[in-house]
């Protein structure tokens, strides 16, 4: 649920986002991944967006944000295909990079369970693609604290996801 913004804002029901942007996201996915992967890229995009939706800043440009998320998801798909072609163990990421988390959509359950600050920073940083300076505007505190929250959050996600 939304927490730290002082300006009142209301996010529309997510269904509206799917209706308004489904077509555009489909076009992005079709342009970037093989047709066999389009469905996955589209679903991953909206699933990630749905997970983050209640925490997003009210003034975010939804179209630009969704396109960014879709592009990231497409990159993830390329990456995981490439991984599968090579030795999967040799290529494990050293941290949970923005891409690696998405192989398992269950990760969003863990993101939702993080403490507020970590969850918000991770959401803005890795899903919204916002710079730390902008994140600090939204969640308050210092940039160093935001970086710390992101790294703590990622560490606890990594503990859950990578065994």
């Amino acid at each position, binding site marked *: 649920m939304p927490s730290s913004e002082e300006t009142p804002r209301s996010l*529309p*029901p997510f269904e509206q986002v799917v209706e308004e942007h489904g077509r555009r996201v489909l076009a992005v996915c079709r342009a970037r991944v093989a047709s066999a992967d389009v469905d996955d890229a589209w679903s991953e995009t909206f699933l990630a967006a749905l*997970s983050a939706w209640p925490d997003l800043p009210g003034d975010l440009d939804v179209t630009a944000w969704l396109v960014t998320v879709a592009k990231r998801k497409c990159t993830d798909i390329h990456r995981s295909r490439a991984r599968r072609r090579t030795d999967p163990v040799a290529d494990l990421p050293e941290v949970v990079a923005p891409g690696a988390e998405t192989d398992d959509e269950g990760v969003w359950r863990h993101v939702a369970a993080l403490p507020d600050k970590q969850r918000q920073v991770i959401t803005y940083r890795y899903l919204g693609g916002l710079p730390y300076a902008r994140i600090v505007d939204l969640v308050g505190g210092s940039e160093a604290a935001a970086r710390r929250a992101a790294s703590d959050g990622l560490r606890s996600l990594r503990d859950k996801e990578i065994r």
Partner: protein
Amino acid sequence: MTAETDDLARLHDRLVARAGEVGLIDLAYRAVDSPLGALLLVATEQGAVRLAFEEEGHDAVLADLAERVSPRILRAPRRLDETARRIEDYLGGRSRSLDVPIDLRLLAGYRREVVEALPRIAYGHTATYTEMAGMTGRPRAVRAVGSACANNPVPLLLPCHRVVRSDGSAGGYRGGLQAKRWLLGLEAAGAPAARERLD
């Protein structure tokens, strides 16, 4: 329908299924066609949280829920099939009970007590606002009963239409006075009344 529209419909279904699996749908909704017009049924994982009449404006109701409960809202008709079927059976005069899971998180305090007490008025019967006030242990709270009924988030499912004025007239109703009369008529007469649509 273009192929792309079909693709988007299929992708939407799939998104709903996967979001449901990982517990990301806080509110699922669907429309239910009825003799009282198009109804909007909205549910959490616990049960029906809101039932709205066409007059209330379905989009406005969803926007309000996005703010009050959660904006993680998706149209997920299949998830609500069972409740929709029961509503149809009830409005069609084929069933007298609407025993479905309900989530009263939108209500607190006395309003909630009043709404929870509504099923004590049996099908085909009515109670006055004064009687309801007595039934909930606050005989002087007649006005509060009126406002609780007027703001019942799940009309039909919890039968606020069975609460009437002391002079026997129907009193207000979220779905309009005509709808209230139609429901009282349905319950008084049984199935035959259900065949005429309300227009």
